C-alpha cells in the first residue's frame, strides 16, 4: 500500500484537529463555569486563551494546504483534507462562542442576576458532548454515528426555548437588571449555535465517507428570529 507519507501526515493533521477540539471543549466548559462562579479572573483567562485557539487553527490550515500542494490528494484523500479544512474553521468558531460567553461574564461583573443556570449548564454539557462524539466520528469517518448526532439538536433547542422564556420573564420581573439579563440571551444563543456547528462537522463526516454534501438540520438562526 503506497502513499505512506500522505497517510502519516494526514494522521498528524487529524491529531491536531482532535487537540484543537479538546481545547475548544475545555474553553466552553470553563466559560460556562465562570458564568456560574463569577470568577472574573478565570473569565479573563478564557477570553485571552482564545488567541491560542486561533493560532492553532492557522497552523492546521497551513499544514493542510502544504499537504494538498505536495501530495496532490485525490478522491477520498481530497475530500478528507477539504473536510479537515472546514472542521478546522468550525472549531475555531466554536472557540469564539466560548470566548463570547467569557465576555458576558466579564460584562456582568459582580452584578446580582437571576439566570436560568440549570438550562445553560445542560445546554453546555450537551453541546460539548455532541462535539466530542462528532469529532470522534469524524476522525473514524463513521457516517452512521455522524448521521445520528444532529438529531440531539432538538434537545438543545428545547432547552434554548425554556431558557429564553425564563430570561424574558426575568426581564419583565426585574427591569433593574435588564442590562445584565439581556446578556444571558447571548450565552444561550452561542450554545445553540455551537450545536449547529457540530451538525456541520457531522455533515463533513458523511461527505468524506460518501462524497455527498447536504444540510442535516433544517433549523437555523433565521427560523428562530421569526
Amino acid at each position, binding site marked *: *500500500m*503506497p*502513499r505512506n507519507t*500522505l497517510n502519516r501526515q494526514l494522521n498528524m493533521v487529524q491529531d491536531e484537529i482532535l487537540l484543537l477540539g479538546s481545547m475548544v471543549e475545555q474553553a466552553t466548559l470553563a466559560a460556562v463555569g465562570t458564568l456560574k462562579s463569577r470568577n472574573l479572573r478565570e473569565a479573563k483567562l478564557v477570553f485571552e486563551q482564545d488567541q491560542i485557539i486561533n493560532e492553532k487553527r492557522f497552523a492546521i490550515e497551513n499544514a493542510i494546504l502544504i499537504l494538498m500542494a505536495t501530495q*496532490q*490528494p*485525490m*478522491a*477520498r*484523500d*481530497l*475530500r478528507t483534507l477539504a473536510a479537515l479544512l472546514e472542521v478546522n474553521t468550525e472549531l475555531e468558531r466554536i472557540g469564539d462562542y466560548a470566548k463570547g460567553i467569557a465576555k458576558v461574564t466579564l460584562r456582568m461583573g459582580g452584578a446580582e442576576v437571576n439566570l436560568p443556570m440549570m438550562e445553560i449548564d445542560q445546554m453546555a454539557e450537551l453541546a460539548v458532548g455532541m462535539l466530542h462524539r462528532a469529532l470522534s466520528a469524524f476522525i473514524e469517518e463513521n457516517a452512521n454515528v455522524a448521521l445520528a448526532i444532529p438529531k440531539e439538536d432538538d434537545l438543545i433547542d428545547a432547552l434554548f426555548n425554556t431558557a429564553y422564556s425564563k430570561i424574558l420573564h426575568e426581564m419583565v420581573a426585574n427591569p433593574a437588571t435588564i442590562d445584565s439579563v439581556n446578556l444571558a440571551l447571548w450565552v444561550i444563543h452561542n450554545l445553540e449555535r455551537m450545536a449547529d456547528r457540530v451538525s456541520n462537522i457531522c455533515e463533513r463526516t458523511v461527505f468524506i465517507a*460518501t*462524497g455527498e454534501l447536504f444540510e442535516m438540520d433544517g433549523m437555523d438562526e433565521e427560523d428562530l428570529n421569526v
Partner: protein
Amino acid sequence: MEDMNQSTKYAIETRGLNIFYGDFQAVKDISLQFERNRITAIIGPSGCGKSTVLRAFNRMNDFVPSAHATGEVLYHDQNIYDPSVDAVQLRRLIGMVFQKPNPFPKSIYDNVAWGAKMNGFRGNTDDLVEETLRQAALWDEVKDNLKKSALALSGGQQQRLCIARALAVRPEIILMDEPCSALDPIATLKIEDLMRELSQNYTIIIVTHNMQQAARASDYTSFFTMDTDRSGIMVEYNETSLIFTKPKDQRTEDYITGRFG
C-alpha cells in the same frame, strides 16, 4: 429522430470490443462512447490495455501480426473493422500523436506539409503550414526558420509539431498516446492548453498514466484496470470532475488515490 441524435452525438463508440494478441486477450468487452468535441482521458495501470484500445480506433494494431479484434468500433455509424473500410483513409480521419515526439527528419515545413501532400492536398501549402502551425500554437516560435530541421526543436516543440502534422491532414478525431510522458512540466502544460483549444473543433482521446494530467485536461475520464486473467477491462467512465472527487468504484478510488495494488 431520437436515434439520429444518438448516433451523431458520439464521435466514436465501441460496443463489446475485445482485442487479442494471439491467444492472449488484451482487453475484454469494452463499451464506451466518446463525446464529440470533448477530451476524453483513458487512465489505468500499466498493462491494462488502454493504449491497445486507443490504437484500435485508427487500426494501428493492424501492424501487430498477431493482433485481432472482435466486437464493434463505430465511427460514422460504420464498424471500422468491417472489411470494406480502408484503414489508410481511416487513419487520415483519426489522427494520432505518439508517446515520444517523432517528427520526420525533415524541415519543420516539410513535416507539416508531407502528410497533406500524401493525402492529395492540392491547395496552397504555405497557407496550410501556417494555419496548422498556428492551430498548434507553434507558429510564433518557428515562423522565421521553417526550413530548419524539426529535430533541432525542443521536445515540447517537437510534440506540438507532431500535433500540427496530424492537424494538417484535417482529421476529425485526434488520438494521443501519453503525449507528454517525455516532456518537462511546462511543455506538458502547454500541450494541455493546446488540447483545450483544439477540443473546440476536434474530438480528442488521450491515454495517460499521469492522473493529474487527466484531471487537469480532460472532460471525461475512463478508468481501465486488469482482470484476474490480466485482460484489460473498463471499470468506470464518467465526467472527470466526478471521477477525481467521488469515484463510484472502489478500484477507481484505490487507483486515483495512489493506493492501487
